[in-house]
């Protein structure tokens, strides 16, 4: 089965430092006003019982990309073997169909009018380097790998947390 590469973000490790956002922009020389990765806070409660969580998101590299499905020129492609969703800017006509189709508001349009977004640092991956956002994350909140590996890691983390030192006598499953 073909592999799907992706990201895993541990929300309880994300400290809203913005290192991923700027590292991404610097790596890809992204135009001002455009962000391939975005850090967002989600607040809940009210003072003094208030809190927030921070999440850092880029393109979701979906299994069934809505953007690819509506792209009239075939500029957007889900790459076989890696699952990375890429955009060929020489084919993009800037019609914004992908913008309306994407449920996450990922597609953005630069100075040249064509769509741009996270490419999972494919050129770094080919050199054996992690995506820039992942490698710089001071909280080690961002991880990269195959979805198989990442979901295993995420499960291990939950299991580890549950086990704790008290070893609770409770099984939690789907």
């Amino acid at each position, binding site marked *: 089965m073909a592999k799907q590469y992706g990201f895993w973000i541990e929300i309880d490790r994300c*400290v809203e430092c913005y290192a991923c956002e700027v590292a991404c922009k610097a790596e890809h020389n992204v135009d001002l006003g455009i962000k391939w990765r975005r850090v967002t806070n989600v607040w809940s409660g009210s003072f003094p019982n208030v809190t927030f969580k921070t999440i850092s998101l880029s393109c979701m590299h979906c299994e069934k990309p809505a953007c690819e499905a509506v792209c009239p020129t075939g500029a957007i492609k889900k790459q076989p073997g890696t699952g990375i969703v890429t955009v060929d800017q020489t084919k993009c006509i800037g019609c914004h169909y992908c913008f309306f189709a994407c449920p996450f508001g990922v597609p953005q349009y630069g100075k040249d009018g064509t769509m741009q977004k996270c490419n999972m640092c494919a050129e770094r991956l080919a050199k*054996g380097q992690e995506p820039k956002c992942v*490698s710089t994350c001071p909280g080690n909140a961002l991880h990269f790998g195959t979805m198989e590996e990442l979901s295993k890691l995420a499960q291990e983390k939950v299991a580890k947390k549950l086990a704790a030192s008290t070893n609770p006598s409770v099984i939690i499953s789907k």
Partner: protein
Amino acid sequence: MSEETGLINRKFSRRTFLKATGALGAAVALTGAKDTLLQQSVAKAAVAAPAEEKLIPTFCAMCGPSAGCGILAKVVNGKFVGIEPMPECPLNNGKNCPKAHAAPQWVYSPERLKYPMKRVGKKGEGKFQRITWDEAIKLIADKLLELKAKYGPESLGTVSPARRSYSEYIYRFLMTHGSPNYGHSGICAVQRMFVLSYTVGGVPSADWANADLILLWGKQPIYSGSAKGGVASFLAAKERGAKVIAIKPTMESDVAKSDMWVPLRPGTDAALGLAMINVIINEKLYDAKFVEEWCYGFDQLKQHIQQYPPEWAEPITGVPAEQIKTVARMYATTPKAAIDVSNGPEHARAANDAIRCIGILMAITGHLDKKGCNVWGAGSTMPSPRGVHLFERYTQEWVDKLLGYELPPQFQPFIEGTSCSLYRLWNSVLGGEKYPVRAIIAPGSQSVASTRGTKRILEALEKLEFFVIVDVTRTSDMPWADVVVPVCTMYETDHPFEVSGNWIMARNKVIEPLGDYKSDYEFWLDLGTACGYGADWWNGDIKAHMDWRLEPLGMTYEELRTKYPRGRTYEPKPPEYEQYAKRFAAKSTRIDKGPYLPQGKVALYNTLFEAAGFTPMPVWRELPEGPTATPELLEKYPLLLSDYHTSRTYNAAWLRHVPYLREIEPYPYLQIHPDTAKSLGIKDGDWVKVESPHGWIKMKAQYYPGIRPDVVFALHGWWQGCQELGFEDFPLGDGGANTNNMYTTDPQKMYDPIITAMTSQTLVRVTKL
């Protein structure tokens, strides 16, 4: 490291990835057109000249030169384009913050100073003429020597922003010139180090690795260098199951991740500390044995503290008495508990009292020098490189010459040398101190945007006889400069070395200097030599100087660079605990070298402070203006304003011009609780007028759920525009966005009496513009 943290630091495998893509040529196949275009352009370039890419191990310089995070600077065809991780540096372990990644925009910014200049217009007009580096050095040397002959050497002062690796060079220059007037900001670090040294004999740090409970008191581990280990140790402690109680007025990410939030009003840390001591003593939660053996003045403290019960502190701090009791009990009864105190409590009239309370809390609960508590640390087996400071030349006469003090004269010099508060230096120009300075050198310092009393400093700038700015980019004070000396960024020089714990590495030059300038360090060597003090300044030879500094390590600077390209690591010393006799006998830095603690015990009752005319025990001193300080002002000014010292993306008043950083925080925001804002008819994002009894500024309202409804907060240091994003400069005084313009300049109210920490609290009225 990867073993310890298990799944967290799992390495990505190139082989696995390439296998997944099906071929080694996969890179071409899987990337999009942006990459195809890139490859085409690279291919074109390859025909003409192959792209030369280099990775140079060095240090990030975005927080100023000192204790920089390690980086690999990426240079393509001679241009600095980005950074890659350098895991060998123990300070940041290959991680970097947003500032580090924006470095190329800072280096190639249109705001860079390109060549030395002298003023040709009127002061404040900002008209300059290009001169050479040598002309600038000569011009400054001649003028300083002229003023020295006319008014004495103490007519020169320097203003210093913070501890930098070039701070020692400023001290050395002042010593060789003959002036003690080093102006220190009076708002950071030295304040708490001084008070803790004279209370518990040192500056014991919170043992994050082993504590079960940490009181995060006025500290921001994320904003103050997120890659420097603060974030990692915070998250590791939380994952171990340690509890964190955050004591600070607003909720940021660290508070959101803490177990309890104590949202006190800004500037009221001393009231909280006094009430916590009250609870611990009256509920007999203190460590009686430790108090008996190692604390001086417990009976006096017990009596003194009776006036400060939690119910007294509640209306001042805004923290419910019950919560104060809970925090005090938790801290006192958890064996492995630590307090991590930082800059927050330092900006208040009762700053020394707040920090004394914190030292006393650590002591009476027996939380000093034990694993998991506040510890002195292990030290290093690395021989110390030679210091540049001429500490051995200090005399009482020298201390007496200071024009105004940062720390009381009886206690000078402190660890950084003799100092007067930066504001007092400017105030002297207007006749407000013992005598005036006639010349000021500002190396990496912009007083108008960074220090309280904006209007007074602007007035002093007009009157100052000779003003020199030494900097990388344009500063807020530059229009008033007589000579502007540009210096290189730390990416354009190969010195000095940096030390982090047990590790030392030589700095490497990333690119050649972009203009007619040298480094900060070379500036002082050149100026010292030009003034005739060459014997003390290696006659301007930077290479000989760096070799001299490294002599104790038994190697030259070139040997450090070539033999240890990614740094040299020395063995750490094993930690030692409960070394009380040694800790409490620590010798001070005063002229008499007497101990910090004359009784050899923790100073609950401080006889040295008492002899110097200060209160022997911590007391409460109200804010200049505040809800309980000046209730009569509340009708006109109902909200309490304070400001953040630093941010994730800027350093104090710097870096607003760097586009990738400015995008994250484009406007000067006023954080305001949504309920408060709505009651004033203010919408999220509205521009508002913020007025205090001392000045007014314009800010953009930001609905912020994590703030007390009676408090508003802003980031300090706003003045600079960003050309690439079309943002213009803000005015420096009224009508701008500089919070320093908002606070009192009444000498009786603007300082803490001992450590001259400057207050950053006032009452304000906020209206929609």
